[in-house]
């Protein structure tokens, strides 16, 4: 509406200005040769100046002046011919104004996209993020959700989704913060409280903080929330109350259906803890498999598969190529089984250093650590955190290259497990070509093409971005 008002007023004023001469009072205008006469006067001045400067003689000057006068007279004769009258005419003005304004507006309406808004890039951030999020980019989805929550901080759903998205990429600190908002809005909803407390724990490096424990304790009193039971037991373990922890997990295992989603985790922790405090796992887990019994240090042997490689060969291989996180985890596993908890923790710590920039691998390492129960027993160095990343900016050139290598290797590993990640593949191809590894870049590109072979849109994106990078 404002658009049409501005447009209309502009059209009317401009058209009125065009017609303005018809609204002036009646005047007579000389249209003749007055200008020409002033020129002849200038020419006479010039002749006189030249005469004074001695550039021309008296006779030349006289001749020139005579000629100029003759022409001036000729011009003056036509002076009275030129006369025009300017008459006020409201009707003419009105007609001209209306015709001009209507023609301009009409022409615009025929050609223009009337009322189409401006779309400066700054105002299109949301749209761009939406498009990227639709293409599967989690960061963009998170950015969008952050915007949504800042615009509408009272929406439980937005905070809830944001918290889960943060958790998905392993950013548990941000996830806990988002859950806190969700919990404030939802009040005493047990499910929310439980998720919040869990996020706090994860953000705290899987150590149950007091605030989380209070929430879990409250939940245990009022509900049968499995998560609360699990983490309370974990908290006991972390407080060196290993018996209590085992009892808690055992109780949870008894109370849960055998196929409950958390059961593998609970069983694993029971097995690890049994091994650690050297007790019989069957006391706590009556249906333990032979393999579990073996892992718990009970009956060594039969079910245990012989290791494919010895620790020594693994160490050797890792010394040559440290960019193989699975081997690191395997090494930690071997050492842990051999009762060398410290050595196992050390292997994982080294792995963390090599993959400092690869969140996915760090997550895998943390999972392995927990699976082996190492996080409870060994106080080895924790994995790289934000401060490590900041330190990376002060690294030497070699260290940085090493860290970048680690990031790329981590990305490759992640894509192997979660291949339907278009941005990930593009980034991998770009990383390889930036590092000058053309062959790897090509391999990655071809793998990506296979992964997305049934998705024309994704193929297009791949060809345009990644394909262009390697000259396809």
């Amino acid at each position, binding site marked *: 509406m404002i*658009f049409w008002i501005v447009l209309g007023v502009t059209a009317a004023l401009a058209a009125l200005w065009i017609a303005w*001469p018809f609204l002036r009072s009646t005047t007579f205008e*000389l249209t*003749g040769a*007055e200008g020409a006469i002033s020129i002849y006067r200038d020419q006479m001045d010039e002749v006189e100046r030249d005469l004074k400067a001695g550039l*021309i003689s008296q006779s030349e000057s006289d001749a*020139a002046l005579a000629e100029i006068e003759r*022409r001036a007279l000729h011009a003056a004769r036509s002076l009275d011919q030129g006369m025009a009258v300017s008459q006020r005419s409201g009707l003419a003005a009105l007609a001209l104004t209306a015709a001009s304004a209507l023609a301009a507006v009409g022409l615009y309406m025929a050609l223009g996209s009337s*009322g189409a808004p401006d*779309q400066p890039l700054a105002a299109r951030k949301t749209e761009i993020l939406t498009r990227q999020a639709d293409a599967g980019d989690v960061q963009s989805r998170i950015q969008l959700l952050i915007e949504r929550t800042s615009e509408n901080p009272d929406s439980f759903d937005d905070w809830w989704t944001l918290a889960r998205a943060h958790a998905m990429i392993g950013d548990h600190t941000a996830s806990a913060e988002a859950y806190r908002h969700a919990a404030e809005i939802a009040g005493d909803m047990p499910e929310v409280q439980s998720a919040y407390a869990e996020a706090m724990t994860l953000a705290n490096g899987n150590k149950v903080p007091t605030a989380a424990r209070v929430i879990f304790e409250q939940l245990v009193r009022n509900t049968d929330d499995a998560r609360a039971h699990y983490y309370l037991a974990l908290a006991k373990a972390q407080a060196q109350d290993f018996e209590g922890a085992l009892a808690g997990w055992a109780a949870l295992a008894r109370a849960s259906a055998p196929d409950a989603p958390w059961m593998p985790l609970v069983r694993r922790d029971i097995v690890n803890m049994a091994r650690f405090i050297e007790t019989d796992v069957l006391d706590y887990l009556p249906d333990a498999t032979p393999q579990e019994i073996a892992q718990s240090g009970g009956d060594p042997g039969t079910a245990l598969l012989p290791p494919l490689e010895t620790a020594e060969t693994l160490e050797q291989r890792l010394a040559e190529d440290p960019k193989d996180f699975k081997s690191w985890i395997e090494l930690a596993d071997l050492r842990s089984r051999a009762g060398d908890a410290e050595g196992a923790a050390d292997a994982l710590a080294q792995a963390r250093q090599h993959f400092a920039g690869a969140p996915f691998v760090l997550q895998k390492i943390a999972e392995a650590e927990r699976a082996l129960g190492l996080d409870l027993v060994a106080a080895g160095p924790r994995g790289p955190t934000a401060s490590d990343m900041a330190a990376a900016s002060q690294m030497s050139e070699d260290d940085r290259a090493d860290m970048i290598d680690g990031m790329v290797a981590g990305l490759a590993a992640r894509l192997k497990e979660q291949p339907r990640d278009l941005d990930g593949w593009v980034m991998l191809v770009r990383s390889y070509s930036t590092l000058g590894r053309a062959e790897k870049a090509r391999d990655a590109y071809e793998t990506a093409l296979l992964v997305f072979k049934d998705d024309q849109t994704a193929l297009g994106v791949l060809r345009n971005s990644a394909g262009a990078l390697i000259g396809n």
Partner: protein
Amino acid sequence: MIVELGHFALCLALIAALVQATLPLWGVSQGNAAAMRVADTGAQVQFFGAAAAFAALTWAFVTSDFSVMTAALNSHSGKPMMYKITGVWANHEGSMLLWVLMLALFGVLISIFGRVIPVTMRATVLAVQAMIGVGFYAFILLTSNPFERLPMPPLDGQGMNPLLQDPGVAFHPPLLYLGYVGFSTAFSFAVAALITGRVDPAWARWMRPWVLLAWSGLTAGIALGSWWAYYELGWGGFWFWDPVENASFMPWLIGTALLHSAIVVEKRNALLKWTILLAILTFSLSLIGTFLVRSGILTSVHAFATDPERGVFILLLLAIAIGGALTLFAWRAPKLEDGGVFAVWSRETGLLVNNLLLTAACGIVFVGTMYPLVLEVITGDKISVGAPYFNQSFLPVFGIVLLGAGVGPFLSWKRARKADVLRRAGLTTVITLALTALIALVFGLRDGVGLLGAFIALWLAVATLQDIAFRCGLPRVSAGTALRRLIGLPRSAWGLYLGHFGIAVASAGVIAVSVWKVEVIQTVQPGDPTQVGPYEFTLLDIENTTGPNYQTSIAAVKVTRDGEMVTVLFPERRWYPVERKPSTEAGIETLWHGDLYAVLGDPAGDGGFVTRYYYNTGVPWMWLGAALITLGGMVSLTDRRLRIGAPSAKRRQPLAQPAE
């Protein structure tokens, strides 16, 4: 909203131009002064519309509004702000809009500062000006609309040619257009003279400031373009005789002729028809230059075929404008009476010869430029007319022009004393010969063509200084009197001297660099010295870094002379990732006698780099000369008699007297 208002403003400009092109002419035929004055208000509204449209398009570029197709195709959000703005006219649609904006600007300037021009003449001139405008507004709105919107705007634009991301070329088009479009005023005055049948000294004087303004802008624009080619393209060359350059050079040559012949009309009421013809031709060449050559419509049959709508429209417009004007000329010119008579030995003859030579020079360039284009259109054969053709045919003619420009000011109007002129020219010859011989001896120069060129440039400089001395009365008067007279010289005389001296300086530069420059191309390892004329260039090291929207390798090249440090040059090779194009930035150190010039090429694989080193003698003189010529035009423009606006009170008073 802003973009759409800009689109509307452009429509408004077309309507204003339509009114301005018709109503005032009706007023002239009916003696209706109000209708005539609509030419002024129409021109003002037209300018408002064009300026608002241009501002809106600039807004779209600055805010990266990619819903505007022109911005989406030619801009990018990551560009520095300056190139977002200059990107507005670095594409077809935007440059067309700049073109009509300039046209409207000249119109509004005439409506405001042309009050001294009688309303009949002003109305006719502005109406003709508006007719050109109507054609081009329609062309823009119907075939090249810069405000076309995209329903699904892309996430980012496609960027801009990195070669154009440079301050030199960024401001080259506005200046060039100031020239091209400025000549439309000459065209309008010429057509108005044919329509009204009135050509007299006053007419020439009214037209002159506009021609001067346009000509100065064109001079500066050409120099800036040449300067850009010199340091950006990285070949050490400054003029390639390619169609784009020739397109701007042809109007300049004919415009220079027009500038001189208009003086004859003003002073002597002679050469009337010839001047009108030159005015029409100058603008016609501007049009041909902009739309046939620059647009690429004729350079490639293919381009024409892909967009026949634009091509046909342009051809039609040119046919109407040029053909119409020439037809009008053929019909009306015989009825015009030519005034003053003059002797063979006179300034009139001198200027006429100047005109003929400049026209011939322009004809040579025209043939060399258009022949390959026309041949390709007709037969499909591709030929290229290169520098040898132009050097052999154009340069001799232009050499004679320069010699003539030296003698011309010696001639007085109507009837010159032959003996005086010959005596003064003889003195010029003696001094110039002595100077040329001195230069040849001191610098050990033996190149015959080079010395001939040096003689011609020196001749013009000596003759110009000699004429200044003569005008001051030297050597007959005391130094004090001479100085007083020097200061008292009219600005138009200063324009003449600055212009001619500038041409001499620029020519000297062109000759020096053509004949005596040193060029060395080699692969060097860092630390290897290379001898370039009297200088030694050494590549020190190469640093890789990033600019605002590009990656770059910057080399440091040390230059010494006889072991003494002269300077360090920093040539660059840039890579623009968005546009996927490289560009070079030459490292240049300007000394008074020439440029030290280094270009960094590709890495050679063995740790070495391809480098091109130049010692370009005389190049700074070319830019200095061009600046002097432009300055001359501007100084002449400020001459009291040409000053546009209200005449001074002293001259107003006696104006009323003839009626007594």
